[in-house]
């Protein structure tokens, strides 16, 4: 059986303000889920909370992955379990080359899910980490770069430093291709791209699609779904998934917008204490 990401009744705050108000969702390997919803509905927060961003405080609920409740796991451990997040705004890290970073990242992910003491690295303090020979790594990387039609000069550059918007998104997908996650979340990977860049990104995702990869595609436009056909579509509104359906739901949203999905009881809840 493939890996499952199971989210149960997830509540999370940022700076005391509730953003997620009871999310339930299951994503399995091999499935493509589109998570849609208006700005501020909590889509990015959900992705960040699933990866363990400490900016957010989980106040209730559970996140299960491969049969473990990962809520207390550090982000790196979650990544080593082969959860992946393609960021909406990837950070640039000056002075660190993409090649070195990706190699280190791949080595870490290959270490797998080991419970680590605080401050301990995946190899422990005394043994040398199993490193990937640069030649072998380079071959792997170049293969992925050919698949995704990424220019060779990419790997020579510092991580996301001076990258254009489109380059950053493609760099995220390149990392996804290399790290071979079981469940990948793609946070607004389509935003800020012109139609040509969008096609390249969509083609890349399609190329990676397969029975070993589950995808949670976060977007608020239907546009990318013309190129990537989802198995399921979910609509998020005010921190909850208010409607789920097949790919036709996306078209319905395109036509009708989000307002009709606004939950009625929401008004009452907000109104309790004025």
């Amino acid at each position, binding site marked *: 059986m493939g890996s499952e990401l199971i989210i149960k009744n997830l509540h999370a705050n940022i700076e005391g303000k509730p953003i997620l108000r009871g999310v339930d969702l299951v994503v399995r390997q091999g499935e493509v889920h589109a998570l849609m919803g208006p700005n501020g509905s909590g889509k990015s927060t959900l992705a960040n909370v699933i990866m363990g961003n*400490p900016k957010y405080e989980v106040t209730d609920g559970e996140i299960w992955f491969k049969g473990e409740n990962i809520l207390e796991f550090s982000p*790196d451990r979650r990544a080593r379990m082969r959860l992946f997040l393609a960021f909406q705004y990837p950070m640039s890290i000056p*002075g*660190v080359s993409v090649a070195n970073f990706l190699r*280190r990242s791949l080595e870490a992910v290959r270490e797998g899910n080991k419970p680590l003491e605080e401050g301990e690295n995946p190899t422990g*303090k005394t043994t040398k980490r199993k490193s990937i020979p640069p030649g072998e790594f380079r071959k792997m990387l170049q293969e992925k770069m050919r698949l995704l039609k990424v220019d060779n*000069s990419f790997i020579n550059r510092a991580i996301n430093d001076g990258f254009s918007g489109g380059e950053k998104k493609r760099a995220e997908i390149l990392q996804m291709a290399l790290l071979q996650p079981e469940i990948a979340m793609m946070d607004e990977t389509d935003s800020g791209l012109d139609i040509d860049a969008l096609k390249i990104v969509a083609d890349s995702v399609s190329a990676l699609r397969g029975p070993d990869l589950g995808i949670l595609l976060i977007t608020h436009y239907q546009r990318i779904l013309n190129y990537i056909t989802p198995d399921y579509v979910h609509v998020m509104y005010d921190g909850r998934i208010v409607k789920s359906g097949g790919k036709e739901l996306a078209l319905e949203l395109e036509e009708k917008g989000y307002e009709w999905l606004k939950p009625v009881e929401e008004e009452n809840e907000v109104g309790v204490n004025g």
Partner: protein
Amino acid sequence: MANDLGSPSRRGTAGHTVPQTASIKGPPSHSSPLSPLREGLSRSAVEELSRQKGEPDWMLQKRLQAWDAYERIPTPLGRRGDLGTLRAFANFKFQQLSPYVPSNGNGALPAVIEQSLQDALVDARAGLVVQRNASVVRVELDEQLKKAGVILTDLDSAVREYPELVQKYFMTKCVPVESNKYTALHAAFWSGGIFLYIPKGVEIEDPILTQIWIDSPASAIFTHTLIIADDESSVHYVEEYNSSFEGEQPSLLDGVVEVYVKSAAHVEFSNLQDLGQNVWHITNKNAVHEKDGSTTWVMADIGSKVTLANIGAGLTGNGSAAELVGVFFTDRDQRYSINTLSLHDAVSTNAETQVKGVLTDDSRVEFGGMIRIQPKAQQTASFLSAHILLLSSIWADRKCRAEAIPGLEIGANDVRASHGATVSKIDDEQLFYLMVRGIPQDEAERIIVQGFFEPVLQRIPLENLRTRLRRSIVRRMSGAYETEADTWVDAQERWEVEGVDEYAVSLDKPKEAEEILLTEY
């Protein structure tokens, strides 16, 4: 006569004092056993030191005047509201330390020093000086260079053999005795020391390596480096400070470096300070440039408990230039106060100062970078940038603190000068990004730190020094040598070999500093 050198049997027996009757009639060589002074810092200790060394009267008088200046100059205490490094030093009871702990130059060096020489920053070298505690214990110089007239010796010997040079240059114009309280103390008690003279037109290709080694607790060590690069000469000079003694009894290293750069000469001075955290460290370094003379300074500080560093570039010759690259890393309760001065006092001079530092744990750093442009220094260009990174984040809250204060005093009107200084915390989102890629938090910190340092490390001319620094920083951060620290650094090196990395570092474009243009006046 010459072998009546006091009481060698007392050496190493703590608590005993040297008999005042010890006397020296002939000049001792640096290989002779001398007696340690254990009475603390005093005027009579100055006299005794000079007597043991058999110094000429002019040097004794210079020492005594310096002692008087030391007693007269008030202890510097810093500004109100600063981070307290100077006050910490003022509370350090160095007056109780042994001001003179000579080492026997005969025979083998301790294994730790031999090992360090093996691992030293430079493979090929034109010369070597090792100072252990108060004594120079090894001097080597390439035969060809000797024939060409290059002089490399300990400063004690130079006082006897080249008195006219030492009298003219030793703590006169470059770092005057009374620059501050600690330079005065240094002048009173300096011992051992390095003297390098490069004659006109001689260009020394391989680096000259010097090591200052402290392996004696509760001692005050005063090393002095005097470099005179005559017209159109050049040298790469590397100075390392290390220590290897255990325990809580601290020692003091109060060093002075003076560099005279004559017309169109070039001196590249690289310094790695990796002292143990039971050493208190003061350094005053300055260069005086004549017409078209230039220097490149590389200052790397990662050790010591407390460091007070004053680094100067005196651009007193028309067309002279100085470049300073500074790197530091502090952890635990280390405290640094680093001050740089670009002093423009001639026409058409250039200075560029670039400092990057990282703090973790409870350490504190004060950085002051001053650009001073005198009225006659027209057509000056002077730039300074200092960027300090605190390893305190949402993941690891630490109490490290830093302040960076750039200063600019401009007396001329045809000047281009800019300065910029920042102190910032490591970026939580950068850390999260790396962790989401599977990299544990402590290693993610190291990667960001390496990326932060890399552009400035690239400016260090000596490849070996770069590598050594990378390793030292990573080792300090990870507390281990054999784990992923090595792998990361090695990976970097291997990629470099394959020519993949060469553009990676150039992308960290320096942020636009605030620029002050005064040409319109």
